[in-house]
């Protein structure tokens, strides 16, 4: 029998959300698989982003909700937090999630693991450490890294990025958050809940500029009114300097330059894909925005696939996981399946949560798609009364025939509620079908039924 000229059927570069999912799928499919990781096995989602940050966020939200319990007859005058204990819980969450270096998990599935920086030498070979690996197929899941914004003197000060926050030993007394996207907004609220005086600045006209307009406007109001966060929209941070024990941030707003002094600066302005792995040697095309892939997740070299943040740094962890699974399925089959990106939800873990799926109203306008929309405030449902929670809404966008195109939800359980709409989008369920379906009394999801009912 002829021996394979390759060491492996598949080499996966990166063990984060996309790579990890792909590795498990490949092992289950019986492929001889190697997994290469240059950092901690498990990637950023498990070790420094999603899991640890969300453990911290949930703790802070719980603390904040407890402090505001007096309206329900709960007393919180002696309530306080212990930050080392909060960090300890976060570490437990990482460990339980399989993070902190879970190489043995993969080895246990028969996956060969390698620590080191992978670098393509040719379309069928990568160097790792002192050796090289050859494979019939490759899957690139190297993710994205912090992209330093153009702020004068930024290198002269010590600043935090979102992945540094799980390692701080106490919340700063005051924080300037640069960037009003998902990470910026989550962390601004987190720090404010634990007592930091927070300012958050973004160049856009609202926070969360990639979400529906009503989301950004509402969250800006909630952060300002309920958490005392100073929201600086249409503001560009131009420079930072070290002061006497403080950091001075200068920003441009309304044509005026202003300077504030804070204890910490948190830069949450975005990511850039990790494409520096010799892609040119493998014939893989890429741009500053990421690796170019087709609908089957193949790169310009059809034997090499790419998934996750390295394709587009704005994509969610859940999308990366779905792509990892699909890429492995596709490399094994002749009739490949396209990625159904439309029904993949994303969540912002503020309180209230923000969840969205499909197209925003702006997306539809840009495509000249005629739409109808409905927006129902949460105060319209009975649950709002018993929870004494009134900020939030369900918004659904549909075409003229009632086919749901997208939705945004701001609600305490938005991250769970959104899946009903995601299912509707993926399976062409009409708004009228959602409206007809009974929704449990006193559930937040009653707002979805009401919103769907308003659409033709």
């Amino acid at each position, binding site marked *: 029998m002829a021996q394979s000229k390759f060491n492996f059927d598949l080499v996966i570069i990166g063990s984060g959300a996309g790579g990890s999912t792909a590795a498990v799928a490949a092992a289950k499919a019986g492929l001889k698989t190697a997994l290469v990781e*240059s950092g901690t096995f498990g990637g950023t989602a498990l070790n420094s982003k999603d899991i640890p940050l969300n453990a911290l966020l949930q703790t802070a939200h719980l603390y904040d909700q407890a402090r505001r319990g007096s309206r329900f007859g709960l007393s919180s005058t002696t309530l306080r937090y212990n930050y080392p204990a909060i960090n300890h819980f976060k570490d437990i969450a990482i460990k339980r999630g399989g993070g902190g270096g879970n190489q043995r998990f993969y080895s246990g599935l028969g996956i060969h693991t390698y620590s*080191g*920086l992978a*670098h393509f*030498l040719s379309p069928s070979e990568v*160097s*790792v*450490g*002192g*050796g*090289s690996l050859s494979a019939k197929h490759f899957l690139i899941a190297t993710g994205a890294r912090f992209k330093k914004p153009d702020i004068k003197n930024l290198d002269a000060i010590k600043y935090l990025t979102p992945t540094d926050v799980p390692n701080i030993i106490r919340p700063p007394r005051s924080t300037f958050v640069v960037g009003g996207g998902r990470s910026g907004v989550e962390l601004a609220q987190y720090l404010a809940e634990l007592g930091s005086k927070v300012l958050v600045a973004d160049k856009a006209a609202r926070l969360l500029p990639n979400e529906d307009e009503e989301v950004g406007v509402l969250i800006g109001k909630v952060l300002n009114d309920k958490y005392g966060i100073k929201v600086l929209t249409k503001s560009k941070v131009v420079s930072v300097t070290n002061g006497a024990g403080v950091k001075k941030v200068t920003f441009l707003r309304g044509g005026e330059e202003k300077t504030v002094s804070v204890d910490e600066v948190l830069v949450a302005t975005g990511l850039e894909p990790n494409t520096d792995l*010799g892609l*040119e*040697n493998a014939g893989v095309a890429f741009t500053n925005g990421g690796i170019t892939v087709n609908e089957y997740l193949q790169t310009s070299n059809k034997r090499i696939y790419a998934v996750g943040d390295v394709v587009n740094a704005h994509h969610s962890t859940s999308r990366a996981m779905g792509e990892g699974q699909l890429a492995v399925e596709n490399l094994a089959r002749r009739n490949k399946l396209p990625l159904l990106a439309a029904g993949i939800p994303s969540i912002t873990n503020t309180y209230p949560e923000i969840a969205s799926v499909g197209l925003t109203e702006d997306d539809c306008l840009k495509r000249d798609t005629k739409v109808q929309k409905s927006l129902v405030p949460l105060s319209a449902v009975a649950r709002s009364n018993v929870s004494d929670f009134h900020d939030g809404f369900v918004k659904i966008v549909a075409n003229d025939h009632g086919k749901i195109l997208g939705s945004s939800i701001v609600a305490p359980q938005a991250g769970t509620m959104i899946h009903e709409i995601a299912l509707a989008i993926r399976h062409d369920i009409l708004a009228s079908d959602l409206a007809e379906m009974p929704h449990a009394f006193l559930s937040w999801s009653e707002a979805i039924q009401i919103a769907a009912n308003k659409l033709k």
Partner: protein
Amino acid sequence: MPEVTVRHSDKKSELFSVDKLRASILSAALANSVPEGQATQIADTVTKNVDKWLKGRAVVTPKDIRRVAAQTIEPLHPGLAFFYAHGDRII
């Protein structure tokens, strides 16, 4: 710094030499009528950047080094960068 191997397309390998890179950049710069002082500056910057880029990598190709060198030269001397990016051999 751990040694880095440069693998050529004919599978032959050699150890990366920062002195060899520096000499080749100097020679290319002078051949392109770059003044000596500027040529030395460019060579210093490129070797520093390539050295930094090589950290963590064990094996690279000559094309990789040429590419990183050209990217470093580009803001300093676009003409030289073009020559370097499209030159036959730099090592």
